């Protein structure tokens, strides 16, 4: 009995320990991987009202590459902190099977190719009231077989922070002020000249009338 208990504890530790080592403890990933064991579509319970499961499964089955879809909430306040392709990569790593992993929230579709030599669009936006199957179909339309990209695991770590670009601060110098002022003076001279010409023409045109009126 003691052996049995030890075996049980070891099994539980093995299962939970290895899982936490490879992927963060994210309930969305756990639930998606569990669902993908039976079908390549996982829909978060909160998204069941917007998911057309049958049609989406049809789109998945019609794809040229293995596709795994997870319809879950994501964003800046989730563990991926807005890096949705990384969430797709973590799901792929947890699932362990080659394929195109697509994460959707009803408005946007993000994807990551895992051990698959294809080019996948980073993301696509849905149109208003567009069905989930249509969104997926449009995303998959952008998937292209690539001869140059070798199959490799999807990214599961955040991208290294980009060095902050610094630009030299633009200064307003006396030279600029004079240059712009002189340009303005030239334009103003032309405008004033045109205005003065109009005034002189009007004055010249109105003079004979005044004379006639006086006569």
């Amino acid at each position, binding site marked *: 009995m003691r052996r049995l208990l030890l075996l049980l504890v070891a099994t539980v530790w093995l299962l939970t320990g290895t899982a936490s080592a490879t992927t963060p403890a994210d309930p969305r990933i*756990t639930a998606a991987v569990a669902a993908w064991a039976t079908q390549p579509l996982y829909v978060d319970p909160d998204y069941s009202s917007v998911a057309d499961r049958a049609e989406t499964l049809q789109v998945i089955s019609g794809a040229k590459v293995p596709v795994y879809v997870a319809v879950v909430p994501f964003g*800046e306040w989730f*563990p991926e902190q807005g890096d949705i392709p990384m969430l797709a990569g973590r799901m792929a790593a947890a699932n362990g099977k080659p394929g195109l992993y697509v994460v959707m929230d*009803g408005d946007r579709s993000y994807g990551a190719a895992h051990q698959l030599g294809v080019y996948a669009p980073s993301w696509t936006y849905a149109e208003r009231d567009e069905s989930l199957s249509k969104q997926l179909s449009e995303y998959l339309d952008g998937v292209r077989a690539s001869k140059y990209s070798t199959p490799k695991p999807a990214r599961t770590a955040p991208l290294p922070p980009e060095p902050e670009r610094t630009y030299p601060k633009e200064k307003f110098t006396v030279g600029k002020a004079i240059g712009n002022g002189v340009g303005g003076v030239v334009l*103003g001279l032309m*405008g004033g*000249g045109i205005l003065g010409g109009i005034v*002189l023409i009007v004055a*010249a045109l109105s003079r004979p009338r005044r004379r006639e009126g006086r006569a």
Partner: protein
Amino acid sequence: MPVRFLTALLAALAFLPALPAAAETPEPPDRIAAAWRTDHLFVDERLRAAIPATEVDRIRTAMRTAAVPVYVAITPRTPALQKIRYDLPTLLHARVGAPGLYVVAVVDGDYWSTNAELYRQAGLRGRDLTSVRGDDKRRLDIVSDRPAPQIVRTIQQASTAFDGRALPAVPAGDLEPERPRRGLSVTDKSDRAVYVGLGVGGLLGLALTLVIGLRRRGGSKRTHEGRPTDAPAVDTHRVELRADGKITQAERALARLDRRRNKTTQQLDRRDDAYRRLDAARALRADTTDDVLAAAGALVLARQAERIASGAALEPPCFFDPTHAPGTAKVDWSDEVEVPACQPCASAVRRRKTPRGLQVPARSGLLGHDRKQVPYWTLDPEDSPMVATGFGALSDDLAERITARKDEVR
């Protein structure tokens, strides 16, 4: 038995992770209400790993110090909440059934929004939470990129609404950073330099154009009007020549009259009148030169002297231009004055037009530097007897006036 037990246990372990997913998931309000049975702060499990402990601790501290029981739910925005988002506090209160503050914070992207309702037992104190929120001037300045600031402020507002305690000041870290006043940008300054230049250039351009245009016009006018001054020598000279010719003719006519013997009294009177006019004409020609008024006056007087000496009837000059033919027609002039005029001038007046008249130069302009050609009758009558008498057209005393003036000068 142990083998069977082991098999059953392993089977249970294998299916254990799949069970929650397969089970029917309750609706969000039910999920939250169920969680509140153990903890009044519900953080959605999908967000739990990403909410910093500092945020959670701040919320818990505020919940503990509140005047009312506080129920807080932190959840992501999902389609399941789409229609019931604003009703969630009511739905949750309906499920929990206890008085207190019900706060639901929903995150969409990186934006947090809070919805709250205060439910209290019957009593005589307190204000409405919405009223307190409305009075909170800084409510719109609180940051929305974190959950704690809005939730904590809502709990403070509810405490104020419940027991009237003063609303504490919002920590500086919870307020949107004030945008530093950076003043004018480089582009703005550049634009301003251009506008200043435009203004200065525009004024300069306008002034220069007007000055150049007016000078040219003045120059051309001077050239045009100056013809009498360049050619006044021509016009005045012509009039002078005509006057001198007429003086010679008058002298001959008078000489002929003088040679007559047995002159009648009338002829003697005519001779005297002719001499008087001839003398005045000579005086005008002798006194001034290059004066068109004097030359024209001399012409008129000499012409009259020649006619009188020849025995012809005296004819007044054309009022408008004495160098014209004599004024044989009478036309109405201003103020019911009737003046003699030559036929062309008379017909012009009858056509309600003013004849051009004898043009003489006059000073004009602000400083009197400009010379302008004007009809002679517009000059001051005091300055010239020709103007005063209309060259004898208005009154036949031009010769007398000239003689009297000559005597005055002497």
